[in-house]
């Protein structure tokens, strides 16, 4: 069971990122819990300079862009 967090204030990119991450998890057949983090203080606890951010098991794997499904699948597998 992986824990996935989407960091962002709810802008278009955050929604897109969540859709990509959900799709990637389903396709890889990996069970994951999703959480949206919208509070700025909680977001800034991670080292990022632009949203949206993707956190997998408390590790920030990407920020400021929307990764492709393949990338997310690789991060989920490692």
């Amino acid at each position, binding site marked *: 069971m992986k824990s996935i967090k989407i960091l962002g204030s709810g*802008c278009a990119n955050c929604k897109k990122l969540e859709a990509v991450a959900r799709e990637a998890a389903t396709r890889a057949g990996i069970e994951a819990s999703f959480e949206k983090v919208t509070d*700025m203080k909680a*977001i*800034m606890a991670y080292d990022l*300079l*632009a*949203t949206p951010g993707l956190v997998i098991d408390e590790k920030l794997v990407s920020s400021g862009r929307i990764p*492709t499904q393949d990338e997310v699948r690789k991060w989920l597998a490692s």
Partner: protein
Amino acid sequence: MDTFLHLINGGAGNLAAYLAAHVLLCLVPAFFIAGAMAALIPKPSITRWLGRNAPYRVSYPAAAAAGSLLAVCSCTIVPLFAGIYKKGAGLGPAITFLFFAPAGNILALAYTGSILGVEFAFARFVLSLFFGIGIGLMMAVLFWRDDASHDAQTDTLFAEQADIAAPALGVLLSLIAVLIAGTLKLWPLTATLGTVTLPLPWAEAWQATLSAWVPFDAAKGEEGVSLQGSLLILLLVLIGLSAWKGLENIVEGANRWTWLALGLAAATLLVAAMRLTPSAAGLEVALTGRAVAVALAMAAVLHFARRLDADACRAWLWEAWRFVKQIFLLLVVGVFVVGIVRQLVQPEWIQTLAGRNDLLANAVAVVFGVFMYFPTLVEVPVAHMFLDLGMHRGPLLAYLMADPELSLQSILMVAAVIGRPKTFTYVALVALFSIVAGLAYGAWVDGMDRAWIVGGLTSFVGVLVAALSWLLRRRAIPARI
């Protein structure tokens, strides 16, 4: 009932005139440029100059560059502001970044330039830069203790390095060439290279119908809709529809609609760059130097875009489309409402309050700017309305400095990151400096000696830099405020 119809007509006419005249050659390339900046400029190429060990003569200009190049939307502004403040170069550069971002980004500059004039856009840019750095320095001097307490933090966030790739730079520069070729009113862009008359007998009648639908009074600064304008509005609607199907899921790959939308966008820019005049014989189409320049620049964009890797290309188109979705709809509504309000405001009110360039007029303009909140870019048509109604250009600039910098939303956001005392100081400084900027630009427009104004601004920033250097030496804290 009549009044109501009159108001709606005012709004619709304003909207049609804006879409036909201003949007295309300026906003269409500007959206693509903003998308390219968000997707293709790697953030570390600028943020590496914003770490806590950067000397302030590097970090302040870098903060301004970040405001101009990286921060076109709030997804970047808030985290980058908080990051610079808490983990990077400190309060001063963070404030400079925050202040400069709304005025220095490409969308605001292009739009201000095409509606209020290049000189005005230039003044807005230069004065925001000067005062952005000035306010940042003052905040750093006032709250130096606060930065000293951040010493223990690490610098890893800003250590990463990256450079912009060559094809990405090519795309950006040729897009800027499209923007310049489309908007500058200079020979040889305005030259006519040849004309063709298409046998379209209905052209003149259609123009007459358009003028009847959107009556305009050139003396009041109102604009009508030309035949060319109506064609462009139709093309815009088609672009919107095809882009919805072609760009919404661009991250997963391009489809037929994507190419249709991009082709339509290119065709629209070409049509906008030509000159169509209805006459008794039909429709006279003039090929202008502008059309040739726009075509060449777009060919250059295509050339470089083909060398981008597929992911970068998709990210670019997605960001451009996201800006359109985020900004364009609100802008359309805003322009419509401005058209209605314009029918209600008496020119005498504006002329009495802000027709001159004095302290009171500038103060009124700033207070209006602070209490009004308009979505991104809507401040520009609002300013255009004020200008037409007789506002002096000095107070107008003061309003344009204060409005996007200080909305209730942005004040709350800043307060959440840096706390209330600093936020109030920031708001007071912005209000004060906007008034000074308005007075300075107004004096410039009225023909006051240029050397005085430039000298005054330069010595003002010079005094602040000297004060900061003195403070840094005296307190013996590391030079990173």
